[in-house]
């Protein structure tokens, strides 16, 4: 179920490589960017399910800039922030700006995997919910049409049964005449329902 497309943004090559080495074998598709500018270029070209970005990066945009760009570009992209100890307050600010979560460096990969699985699960569930809603809408419409059609047919059949009953009670008519009338009722009903 781990088919997330992930962009990793960090100016530290060791962190970048380490994240790639841990996540790629787990089934995630990984793109690396060494700064905010590169990250924005990648985000312009493709849609990422998750952007994992370092908060403190030299140059513009920094982690907050990447977060804001990702949030602005798409409602589908979730952002995870990586912070040093000193920047926890900033991380809290970043959460307010729309980050899904933050992790302290050095990255605990077990923790990161749990966060990513949670995002994957959320995405799966929202797709399931959407499919369920659409299936329910379509089924309800189609079922309403079906019921209407069957109701009409039931009414026609009820009507013909009633007429046949009436005919049979007309004891003043000859049996042949009654039979002819019954046949004509049946014939009319067949025409109506087919």
């Amino acid at each position: 179920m781990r088919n997330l497309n992930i962009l990793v943004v960090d100016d530290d090559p060791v962190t970048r490589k380490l994240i790639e080495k841990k996540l790629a074998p787990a089934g995630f598709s990984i793109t690396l960017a060494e700064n905010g500018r590169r990250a924005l270029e990648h985000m312009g070209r493709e849609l990422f399910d998750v952007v994992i970005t370092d908060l403190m990066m030299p140059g513009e945009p920094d982690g907050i800039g990447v977060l804001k760009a990702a949030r602005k570009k798409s409602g589908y992209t979730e952002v995870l922030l990586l912070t040093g100890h000193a920047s926890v307050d900033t991380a809290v600010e970043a959460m307010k700006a729309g980050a899904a979560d933050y992790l302290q460096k050095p990255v605990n990969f077990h923790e990161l995997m749990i966060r990513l699985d949670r995002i994957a699960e959320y995405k799966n569930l929202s797709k399931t919910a959407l499919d369920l809603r659409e299936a329910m809408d379509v089924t309800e419409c189609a079922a309403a049409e079906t019921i209407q059609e069957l109701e009409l047919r039931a009414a026609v059949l009820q009507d013909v049964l009633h007429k046949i009953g009436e005919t049979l009670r007309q004891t003043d008519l000859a049996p042949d005449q009654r039979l002819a009338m019954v046949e004509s009722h049946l014939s009319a009903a067949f025409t109506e329902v087919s």
Partner: protein
Amino acid sequence: MKKITPEEIRQLSRYIYDVSGIALDQSKAYLFETRLGPLVEAHGLADYAELCRKARTGPGKQLENEIVDAISTNETLFFRDNGPFELLRNKILPDLIDARSARASKILPVSLRIWSAACSTGQEVYSVAIVLKELLQQDLNRYRIKLLGTDISDAAIAQASRGTYGKFEIERGLPRDKLVKYFRPAGAGWKIKDDLRAMATFRKLNLMLPFGALGKFDIVFCRNVAIYFTPQDRKKLFERLAGVLAPDGYLIIGATESLTGVCPRFTPRRHLRSIYYQLNTAPKNELRKSIAHRTGRRVSLTA
């Protein structure tokens, strides 16, 4: 999320109808936006009109497949509605096996072909496989039973073919005892066991296109898919399904569907509380004759 215009809906619904038969109208703006919006972004396109243009003119079928995957609804669960599977176990399979055994030679084993015409991610096919396994048990190998699952979505077929399901998919409809018996843990989810997987083949199929080449089937499941088509296409689909059903074959449709007034070639039949359809053995002419015979008169049924 990118907003879609009424004109874009018109273009895209025309396109989606052309490639899949799925009928969508202006009331489904939210559906286009939530399902195709990510595609517009992923391909760096300006808007939905460009998505439609690219899909129509672009080389290859890549974008078409992505659109069909996104727009088709994969709502399914194990043992959905339950009734059809009880029907299969208690009526259809015993009857068919009896009928086929009487005809089978000593050399050729009894063969049954079962088709799930819109199998989505495979839950229906594997539910049927489980019923077969439970009913026939070790005798299963004495029969030649082929299950075919088809769906319009590549992504759905790929998952069906893998036979892997996440926790939420498994929790929908699959009793615990069957889970443990017929699935094995795989990663964060579960995978259907090999002997059940081996009974099934999956392939992509657009039900709007000819499928006569698939051959004849003894049982066809066509549940909750025709509801996505126009009434005219629904009629045509069931007419064509009549063409691939064995003369004594069984058609099972969705619990909220009915063929009354849709396809006169099928007769509804009832077993306990379940409805199934079979090809007419007595066409209207026969009915006319039988009334004429009983009443001793010529009957003019215009139908």
